[in-house]
């Protein structure tokens, strides 16, 4: 994992002092909230429904046991004993006091963490494949580049006030576990015919009220030219985006309006210019960063055998573990989706236990996933039974990865000031309806994603089944969507028809699932069946 040197530490420490000063000026009345709001947002501090909310960055979803313990400490000391993992691999706290926010940032800085640019019109925390550095199918670990980009894009002067937020993702495998093409700017690390590593570049994706799937704008970008290329993209957008309508300022709108070809042409022109300035980060800096990501000392000759006679353990192994690049090891997913629980929520005590388990079983490493779960990336297979027992003791041993109860849900109207409807109770009702594991496994992979409003933090556009909360004359109403996907065959979900109330949408979803089971062919997942048969049959089944 990356370690701060004196420079990184000095920058983060300076940021804490800057925010302390800004907070002091706000509380003393030297700034009004209009002026303060963009400053607090650039430090991840929102004013939500019940209190301030702080979003802490987990760069590319990688963190360690020491950091997790600090997150638990913050939950206990400054919040109400829990945190919420988000769909951008970050963690947020719901009950923060403004006067304590600078102290929290100072605590985070002691463990090399921050909340820089986790909200507002800025370049957000870079997201990445949660299995990076462990996945059997990656061509290289993408995180050194994600970290290099983190450093390039923190405190970037020219882009202090972008038209809107800007989200970046980096992966290095064919299989897309990071919803690449739903990002403003996305990089897939590839190898060209000469065997060199470079980036395949995508731009202009995003969810929100006008969803777009990113276009590929370049087949191969030499990795050491990324700073020039990124500046070119940002400058073209910063100069040309509309500034008169907040809903039309994301880069996806510009790419759409200019057309992908014209956008690429302008980017390439600016790129040539930036290359001539000689500002790119050198290979040596990438190498320095990459050295921190050398794989941990995996043991050789470990047994692959597992005693699967306990059916509950066997189910957990079957569903929660994934192939690792090192023989004898597995990637273990920790579900934060217990039936009846709140997707992504975790108590301070559970955080501490996960930290302990990461130290005991996974070289101290933890990952946060965009599906609001956690991962211990490097577990010896022979340790899986002990790990499972320990997880069971703290209520974290649910087996449901990518199944119908592994639901992504945004905080919705229970916490979010922009919401139209609650998301969490809908997720809870669906999970309770489908709690039976045998039924879940029979249904197979089915990604349900719920947003409490059109901003789409719950990724409903990318759900095999999406649910969108809307306000119908002051009452909560839910639209059902089908056919979305965030994987390498990205697609946008379509609305089935008129909306439902809370129980109605759960029933409608169940009818959609029953229809899939009735018409699927052997081996087909829900999304495959939907793609084969189309919306009509589902519609008929839903609106009986």
């Amino acid at each position, binding site marked *: 994992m990356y370690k701060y040197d004196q420079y990184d530490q000095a920058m983060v420490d300076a940021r804490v002092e800057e925010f302390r000063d800004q907070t002091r000026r706000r509380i003393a009345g030297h700034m009004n909230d209009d002026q303060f709001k963009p400053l607090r947002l650039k430090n991840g501090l929102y004013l939500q429904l*019940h209190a301030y909310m702080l979003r802490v960055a987990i760069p590319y979803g990688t963190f360690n046991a020491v950091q997790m313990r600090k997150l638990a400490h913050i939950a206990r000391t400054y919040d109400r004993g829990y945190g919420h993992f988000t769909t951008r691999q970050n963690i947020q706290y719901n009950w923060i006091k*403004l006067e304590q926010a600078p102290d929290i940032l100072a605590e985070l800085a002691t463990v090399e963490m921050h909340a820089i640019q986790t909200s507002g019109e800025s370049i957000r925390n870079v997201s990445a494949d949660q299995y990076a550095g462990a996945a059997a199918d990656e061509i290289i670990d993408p995180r050194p580049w994600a970290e290099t980009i983190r450093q390039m894009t923190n405190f970037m002067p020219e882009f202090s006030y972008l038209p809107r937020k800007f989200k970046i993702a980096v992966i290095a495998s064919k299989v897309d576990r990071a919803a690449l093409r739903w990002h403003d700017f996305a990089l897939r690390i590839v190898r060209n015919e000469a065997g060199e590593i470079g980036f395949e570049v995508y731009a202009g994706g995003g969810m929100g009220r006008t969803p777009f799937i990113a276009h590929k704008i370049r087949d191969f970008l030499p990795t050491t030219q990324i700073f020039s290329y990124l500046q070119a993209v940002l400058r073209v957008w910063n100069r040309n985006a509309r500034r008169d309508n907040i809903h039309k300022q994301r880069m996806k709108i510009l790419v759409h309006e200019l057309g992908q070809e014209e956008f690429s042409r302008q980017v390439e022109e600016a790129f040539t210019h930036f290359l001539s300035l000689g500002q790119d980060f050198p290979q040596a800096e990438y190498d320095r960063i990459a050295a921190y990501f050398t794989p941990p000392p995996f043991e050789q000759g470990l047994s692959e055998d597992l005693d699967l006679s306990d059916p509950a353990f066997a189910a957990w192994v079957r569903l929660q573990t994934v192939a690792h690049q090192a023989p004898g090891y597995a990637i273990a997913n920790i579900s934060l989706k217990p039936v009846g629980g709140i997707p992504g929520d975790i108590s301070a005590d559970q955080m501490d236990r996960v930290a302990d388990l990461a130290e005991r079983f996974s070289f101290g490493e933890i990952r946060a996933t965009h599906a609001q779960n956690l991962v211990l990336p490097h577990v010896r297979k022979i340790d899986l039974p002990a790990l499972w027992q320990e997880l069971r003791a703290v209520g974290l041993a649910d087996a449901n990865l990518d199944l119908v109860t592994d639901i992504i849900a945004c905080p919705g*109207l229970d916490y979010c000031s922009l919401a139209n409807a609650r998301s969490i109770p809908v997720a809870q009702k669906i999970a309770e309806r489908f709690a039976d594991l045998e039924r879940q496994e029979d249904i197979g992979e089915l990604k349900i994603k719920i947003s409490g409003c059109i901003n789409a933090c719950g990724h409903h556009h990318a759900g095999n089944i999406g649910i969108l909360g809307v306000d119908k004359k002051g009452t909560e109403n839910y639209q059902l969507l089908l056919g979305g996907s965030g994987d390498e065959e990205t697609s946008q979900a379509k609305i089935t028809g008129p909306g439902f109330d809370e129980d109605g949408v759960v029933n409608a979803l169940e009818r959609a699932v029953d229809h899939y089971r009735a018409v699927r062919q052997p081996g087909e997942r829900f999304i495959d069946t939907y793609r084969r048969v189309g919306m009509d049959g589902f519609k008929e089944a839903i609106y009986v």
Partner: protein
Amino acid sequence: MKVLTGNDLKTGAVTWWDGVQWSLHVEDAVDVGDHADAIMAREQAAQRVNGPYAIDAEKTADGVRPAHIKDRIRALGPTVRPDLTLKPADPEIGNWVI
């Protein structure tokens, strides 16, 4: 009735205008008639409230009930964590929101 709500600047807590100051309890909210703007301007300038706004509400037997579900959730707390609401002892309190 028209009532005023906002958040406390330092703590972020949801507050309601009780005629004299900002209370944590919606029951204390008073009808401000057409003085909403004047009160909000004065209180905001004095840093006693953050982001105040006026809403419609109704006086009922159990107190003041905001017209919109969003403000009822603000008045109570998250419905999915009854233990963290202002009425943690009342298991039925979630129903008040709906």
